[in-house]
Structure formats: C-alpha cells, structure tokens
C-alpha cells in the first residue's frame, strides 16, 4: 500500500470533536474501511478528512458493490466518443455533432421531500450534461411509486411531478418522455430517475481531468450553504422510521440560478479558457475537486475560506460536504481569470478562485492560512474498498401455460380494465405539467409514439429517446428482465424509424449485502450485457442506486434503461397514432401467447407469477431492422411496439391516440385468444401501412413473421367475435384514472 509522504499535517480546529467509533459509524464507514483509512493516512484523521473518506467511499460515489459487475457491460462502438467514467456519455451522431446523455437517480431525497428531491434530481442531471459542453435539448424521467392506495402515494406523485416540472420548465428544456409505474414494492422507496440529452460539437467536448500545475481552480455558481450535507451517505443507506429526520440532508434547488449557470458556462466554453470542468453533485466540493485532481494525476490546494458562503460561521467540514446546488468547479488556463470573471458577473453569479493545481498528488485544504486537511489522492482511489459481494442467482420460475390462465368472461370489460389500470392508464395528467414543446423541436410528443423524437437544431436530423424497464420481469428472473429492458428500449427507438445508438443505465436495487439482492443485480447485468452486445447498443453512462429498502423490504429490482437513437431525416419519423382509415394493420414478430408475468395476469386475474417472456435477441434484431427499413422506405404510417398488455392494448392505444378505429380478426392458430391478445411475447410490433403487399413481401424475404390482422377505419375497435368498443369508451377508461385519483377528496 502506498503511504504518501505528508509535509503539512493538519491542525485540529478548536471545536472539533475527537474521532470515536460512533462518529466513524455515523459516517457510514465500516470498521475495516476505517482501518484502511488509518493505514492510508498513517494517523487519526481530522473531521474534514473523515468526511472526505466517508463521501468518496460511500456506495454512491465509489460503486464499491457494483463495480465488479458494471465492468461486464459493453461500452464500446465506433460511434462512442466517451463511455462511462465521465459526467455523461458521448456519442457521435454525424455532421460534427455529439449527443451527450445520462440518467441518474434521486430516489432517497424524493421520498423524503418530493418536490425538492425531484427538482434537484433534474438539476443535477442537467449539470452533468452541460458540464461537458452540451446544450441540453430534452429531459426524460422514469418514476416508480407505491400502490395507489398507500397513504403517501398521492402526495409523492404530486410533489415529484411538480418538482420535475418546476425545474425543467424554468430551465427551458422540454421534458419529452418517460414512464410512470405503481407497485406496492415501492411503497417505502419511490424511484425518481431523471435523464438529460444534450448536443455539442464533437470538437468542443469538455472533460473533468485537471491539467497544468499552478492552474487556478475556480468556483462558480451559487453560494455554499448547509444543505445536503451527507446526501451521498444518506443515498447509501436503507430507510427506517427515522428517515423523516433526514429532511435537512435534502438539497434545495433554484432552477433560475441553474439557467444562468448554463448560459454562463456555455458562454465561457465558447472561448478557449477552460482546461477542465466538473459540476458539484453528490458530495459537492469533495468529489468534484478530488475527481478532477485524480483524473489528471495531480494534487490540489483548496483555500476553503475563499469559497462563497451563504451563511456565517460555516466550517471546513460543512463546506467540503455541502450539496448546495447550482455550483461548478473549473480549472482555467493561466491568466484567464478576468475573462471568466466578467462572464459570470454578467450573469450575476458568484465567481471565486479558491485554489490551484499542484504536483503533489495530495488534496490540501487550508482555512485562513492553516492546513486543516491533507489527504493523499491516489490511494483513496486505488485502495478504495471494492466488494465482490456474495450472490445467489434467482431461479427461473415455472413457465405458465396459457391453459392455466382463464380467458376473460367479458372481453370488452377486460380491455377497459387494462387500459384504465394504473400502469397503462394515460399519464397525460403528468406530462401536461411538463413543458414538452419549448425549443420548438418536439416532433413526436409524449404518448404519440414509442419514443420521443426531437429535432437537432440546424438540420433535418432527429434524436429518438426513451426510458424503459419492466420491473416485474426483472423480479421474476433478473437475467431475462435485464435483457428485456434493453430490448424494449431498442425496440421503442426502432419503432419511430430511428437507429438505436447507445444506452444509459440507472440501476435501482435493494441492499447489496443480501445475497439474493446481489443476485438480482448480477442477473440483470448479465442479461443487459448480452442484449447490449447483440444489439450493438453500448452503455455509455449510468448510475447505481442501492439500499432501496425500507424496514428490510426491498423494491422490485429496476434497471432503468435510457436510450438514444438517431434518424437522419426527421420527416420520416413515425409515431403510433392511427390517424387515417383504409390502412392495413399488420402484426410483426412471432406470437406464442406468453402470459407469465403479464399485465393481464396481474390486473384481470389478480396473479403475479410465471416466468417472464423470453427475449430472442436475434429475432429482436431481425424484426427491428425490418421495421426500421420499412419506415425509412416510407411504407409505414404508424408503428407501435408490443409490450405491457400485449397486442390488444397496443391496438387500443393506436386507435384512441389517433382517433381512428379498426376492424381486425385473429389469424387461425391454436393459441387461445386471450393468450394471443394479451400475451407479452417480445420482438413484436404493430404497423399500419397503405402498401401491405410490399411490406408482407419484404417480411417474407427477410424471414420476419408478419400477418395481416385487418384494416383501420370507423370509430370503434373491433376484434371479430371478441371485442367491440367505441373509441370514446376506451378513451374515457384510459384517461380518467389518473386525474380522478389525483383530484379525489382526501
């Protein structure tokens, strides 16, 4: 083990407590981790040093339980410019442009204080993206709440949605997509996963690695207050009945300041004054300064008394661990301080030179001229705990045969029940609170397609983006669920006509110290890795959120997949709305009638069992490539992937969103009708086309199963001999649930 030579041992401040085992435990460090610290330091740390170790070795910052598994994910492709490890992932989208994106969780804070927790989640992910030189062009979010009947759920939905809207709307970034589910497993731990996509020039991407001994370290943005201290540590622990007391660890956001910070940073980035830049997110000044120096192989001196402070009497410990929002750390080229200062002053933001880079590979903290912290940087990284936690694979549940599942007694009623169930019901109440149109580039809006499609300024190109996960599949069999989450994201991008390019993953799981939870994590990663490899869909950024448990009850394992694809001519993009009659409705992909873990089983039969639908990645690819080619050939007027609820709910969604009915019949098959219509077999799409003969011909040639179901027209959805419903009736069932739930009297 490297023990760095220390020239300036720190002074202990007057009011500093002795480091006791209790204080160590309160900092979330296990006894053996503290032993490690002592070896590295060669002495008892000061409080601020203990705080630095605590933050840097927290699960949130160090990925100590997940690192060995995350390495298994494929991260490379010819179009990947930057994979995991930076603030966000970067991919080449052609014409000298890059898409920069990432998804990140803000689960724990959002449960404690939903508005601010969700708002600062959006603020944090926006900073991760514009730190790299991108102008954000779209936000998405994946939300999981507890069951609707739980007493906290409505309050949480209301606060989270208002918080996401409040931040994104003020920033002027359209929120164009996402997903919202409800399940009892999230009663005590909701999930708020926020994703931002931005655009930059490939030759103007900014990284965090510091360079240049002597270069100034500059602090910009908001002042530092006492909010969010220990946020990273909180995010790395389970909840219990005292969690309410953690409210002061939740940060408070100000999107107005972030908007100014965005404009000021982009203005400074247009000059050549910046060497490196990093936002202050989890563990604030500690992790930002530490990471910049570590990535550059340098040391840093930080004069903490120069940090702009919001309150009087703040201490070094608080300054280093505060998670006050809307702050950035920049390494400037020498002599550029005044140029940068003018820009930040124009935007009425704080600007302070708070330190400089050194060649010592140590982080030295000073307070009014005295050294108060002195930590060697490399061993904190190389000697950081990494755990190969024991894990138990989740066994594959028994496959459920369709004959074991009853057909609906009343077909119309079963469809209405599914269309109005919390997971499938329209989320318009939510996304109407998000400005999804600002910037004037939103081509496919929420609910109008499987993925949102947004134009890239200054051309005809569009980006398609989506977020997906089916937690009940992952719970039943993590490997299949992980595979399915990636496949569905790929399919959703494909269904708009775009080419799927890359993934950001947000791994939300329970306590990794439990072998069965670690087994879920391992399984999900293995499934995701395989799907990413086969679909050439690398992971370029991500985030891990563990310890999502309350009173020992874990969430459903939820590896949320955010994905981005590109369509060269946005005029060719298609949505899922069926807007004209006389079109042939064709089912693409093989139907076997897989009812295990289906929504039909849960919502209509009241059961959650069976194996989840298997994912044939070769079929995914073949069927998806076929659909994308047909869209590119302009043969397809509307396209919808089949997922939750199967074929019948997909048909219903296409009809009601576009205001056009259809009349279809099931092909002759020995699959029971309810399995055909509600089964959740993967790798399937419904397409509407005016040229069915050509489309079916091409499908036959490509070995893609495709069958004509019927034609669009009229104002009802009719499935011969089974279903006949006026669109208005379906629409009412679909749209009524969420508003009436949210507006119901207390």
């Amino acid at each position, binding site marked *: 083990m490297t023990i760095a030579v220390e020239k300036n041992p720190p002074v202990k401040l007057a009011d500093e407590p002795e480091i006791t085992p209790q204080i160590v435990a309160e900092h979330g460090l296990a006894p053996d981790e503290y032993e490690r610290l002592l070896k590295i330091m060669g002495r008892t740390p000061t409080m601020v040093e203990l705080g630095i170790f605590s933050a840097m070795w927290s699960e949130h910052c160090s990925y100590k339980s997940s690192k060995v598994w995350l390495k298994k994910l494929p991260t490379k492709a010819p179009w990947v410019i930057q994979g995991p490890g930076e603030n966000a992932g970067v991919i080449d989208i052609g014409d000298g442009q890059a898409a920069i994106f990432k998804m990140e969780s803000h689960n724990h804070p959002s449960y404690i204080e939903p508005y601010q927790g969700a708002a600062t989640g959006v603020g944090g992910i926006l900073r991760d993206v514009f730190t790299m030189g991108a102008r954000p062009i779209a936000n998405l979010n994946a939300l999981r709440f507890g069951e609707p009947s739980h007493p906290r759920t409505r309050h949480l939905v209301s606060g989270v949605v208002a918080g996401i809207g409040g931040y994104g709307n*003020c920033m002027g970034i359209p929120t164009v997509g996402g997903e919202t589910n409800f399940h009892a497993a999230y009663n005590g731990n909701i999930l708020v996963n926020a994703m931002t996509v931005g655009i930059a020039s490939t030759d103007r991407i900014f990284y965090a690695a510091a360079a240049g001994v002597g270069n100034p370290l500059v602090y910009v943005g908001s002042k530092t207050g006492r909010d969010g201290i220990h946020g990273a540590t909180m995010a790395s622990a389970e909840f219990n009945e005292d969690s309410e007391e953690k409210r002061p660890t939740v940060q408070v956001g100000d*999107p107005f300041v972030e*908007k100014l910070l965005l404009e000021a940073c982009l203005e400074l980035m247009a000059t050549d004054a910046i060497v490196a830049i990093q936002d202050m997110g989890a563990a604030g000044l500690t992790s930002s300064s530490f990471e910049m120096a570590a990535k550059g192989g340098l040391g840093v001196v930080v004069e903490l008394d120069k940090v702009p402070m919001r309150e009087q009497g703040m201490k070094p410990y608080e300054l280093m661990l505060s998670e006050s929002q809307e702050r950035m750390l920049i390494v400037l080229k020498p002599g550029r301080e005044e140029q940068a200062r003018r820009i930040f002053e124009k935007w009425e933001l704080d600007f302070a030179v708070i330190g400089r880079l050194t060649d010592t590979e140590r982080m030295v903290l000073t307070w009014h001229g005295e050294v108060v912290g002195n930590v060697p940087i490399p061993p904190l990284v190389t000697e950081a705990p990494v755990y190969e936690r024991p894990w138990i694979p989740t066994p594959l549940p028994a496959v459920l045969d369709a004959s074991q599942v009853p057909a609906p007694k009343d077909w119309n009623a079963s469809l209405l029940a599914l269309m109005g169930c919390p997971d499938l019901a329209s989320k318009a109440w939510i*996304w109407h609170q998000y400005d*999804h*149109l600002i910037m004037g580039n939103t081509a496919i809006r929420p609910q109008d397609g499987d993925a949102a499609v947004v134009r890239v300024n200054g051309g005809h190109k569009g980006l398609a983006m989506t977020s997906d996960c089916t937690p009940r599949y992952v719970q039943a069999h993590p490997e299949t669920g992980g595979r399915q989450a990636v496949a569905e994201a790929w399919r959703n991008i494909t269904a708009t006509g775009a080419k799927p390019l890359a993934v950001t993953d947000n791994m939300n799981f329970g306590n990794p110290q439990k072998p069965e939870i670690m087994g879920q994590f391992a399984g999900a990663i293995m499934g995701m890795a395989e799907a990413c490899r086969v679909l050439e869909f690398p992971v370029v950024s991500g985030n891990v959120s563990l310890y999502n448990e309350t009173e020992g009850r874990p969430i459903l394992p939820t590896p949320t997949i955010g994905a981005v694809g590109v369509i060269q001519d946005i005029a060719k993009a298609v949505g899922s709305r069926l807007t004209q009659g006389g079109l042939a409705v064709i089912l693409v992909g093989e139907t076997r009638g897989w009812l295990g873990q289906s929504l039909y089983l849960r919502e209509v039969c009241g059961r959650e069992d069976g194996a989840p639908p298997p994912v044939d990645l070769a079929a995914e690819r073949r069927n998806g490539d076929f659909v994308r080619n047909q869209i590119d050939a302009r043969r397809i007027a509307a396209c919808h992937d089949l997922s939750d609820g199967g074929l019948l709910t997909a048909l219903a969604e296409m009809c009601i969103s576009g205001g056009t009915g259809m009349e279809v019949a099931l092909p002759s098959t020995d699959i029971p009708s309810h399995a055909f219509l509600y089964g959740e077999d993967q790798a399937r799409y419904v397409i509407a086309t005016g040229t069915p003969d050509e489309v079916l011909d091409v499908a036959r040639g490509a070995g893609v199963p495709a069958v004509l179901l019927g034609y669009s027209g009229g104002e009802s959805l009719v499935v011969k001999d089974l279903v006949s419903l006026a669109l208005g009736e379906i629409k009412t069932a679909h749209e009524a649930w969420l508003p009436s739930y949210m507006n119901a009297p207390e």
Partner: protein
Amino acid sequence: MKASVLVFPGSNREADVAQAIELVTGRRPNMVWHGAGDFEKTDLIVIPGGFSYGDYLRCGAMAAQSPVMAEVKKRAAQGVPVLAICNGFQIAAEAGLLPGVLMRNENLKFVCADVHLKVETSQSLFTNRYQAGQVIKVPVAHAEGNYFADAETLKRVEDRGQVAFRYCAPDGAVDGTGNPNGSIRNIAGVFNETKTVLGLMPHPENAVEPMFGGTDGKALFEGLVEALS
C-alpha cells in the same frame, strides 16, 4: 421587418421566437440584453416567454422595472409595436402597457398543451392575416396565465375591441371546455388601446412548422411582416 427580442436573466423562449421570426422574414432579430437602456431602432419589439428573474416576487414584476423596459415603454408610447408572449405578457401587464393581470392557473398547476383560440378581430397589425372568428390551434405553457381584470377595466377592454384571442373549443364555442387556466371571459390575449401592443399567453412561435406543432401561429408573424415592412 427589423425585430428586436428582449432577453432577461431567466428568459427561455427567446430562441423560439427568434427562430419563428427568422423563418418568416429570413432575418435574425436583434437580441437585446435587459441591462440595455437603449437599443437600435427597430420595427417590432418582442418580449419573450420564460421565467425572468426566476419569477421571484411575482411573475414579470422585476423585469418590468429593468432599464430595457423603461426604453420599451417610451417606444411603445411612440407607437413602436410590441409583441408580448407568455412571461412577456406578464411583464407588459406589470409595466402597465396592457390592461389586466395574470394570476395563478385556476387548478394551480403548470399546463403545457395545445389550445384552440378564437381570433376576435382581423383589424390589427398582429391579426391581419386571420379572419375574425377563425379558430386556430397553438400551444400554451405556463403556470400563471389566468387573466383577470376588474369589471370596469373589462368593460372598457371589451367595448373598445381590445380582446385579441379567446380560448375556445375546437368548434369555436367560447365556453368552459377550452379554457386551460380559468381566464375571465376566456381571454387569451389583449391589445392596448391603440392595438400596437399585443399580449398573449399562448405561443404562436411554437406553431410555425407542420411537423412541430402545426402552422397556425405563422400567420401572426406573416401579418406583422406585411404591416411593418
């Protein structure tokens, strides 16, 4: 037509309106920073949407006191046309350029959605390309768009034909169904007495291209070009 678009700290739809103006005129408007006490001669002043000064104090209240707004008031008094959209409408109302106020939406929530508007008159710089009674579809995106004026002001505004647009149903019926925010008498946009200043909550600048929200907002900009070139 030479246009100037004001930019306040927190403005965020200035690029949208600049893009719409450029699309129609082929010419990028001049962007004017809020601290400017003076700016070059212009045919049209646009106060764009956003969250100027973070909506602190009250939407538009702080921007209304900025140096650039003193100049805008002076020029508006000389007859220079002013188009005030969304937060711009709130600023113009706070600055006294337009009658009435914008309150929190009736349901207290931000709303982003397409709405239908009934054009009340074609007799203005802003609406000359529309027919009176025509129904157009444009989006709104705001939390404080609930127009209100006292009875006396309202009577004066109605009597003088200062209502520019009203929220309506797709068939043009002015009733409760099409009103997204609780505005009194479904008022979505008003003129000043000389009809040289228009304030409206909806965003015509986000309805100028077929793939991106339709084109019903384009005629407003085309009408301005026709009147001001």
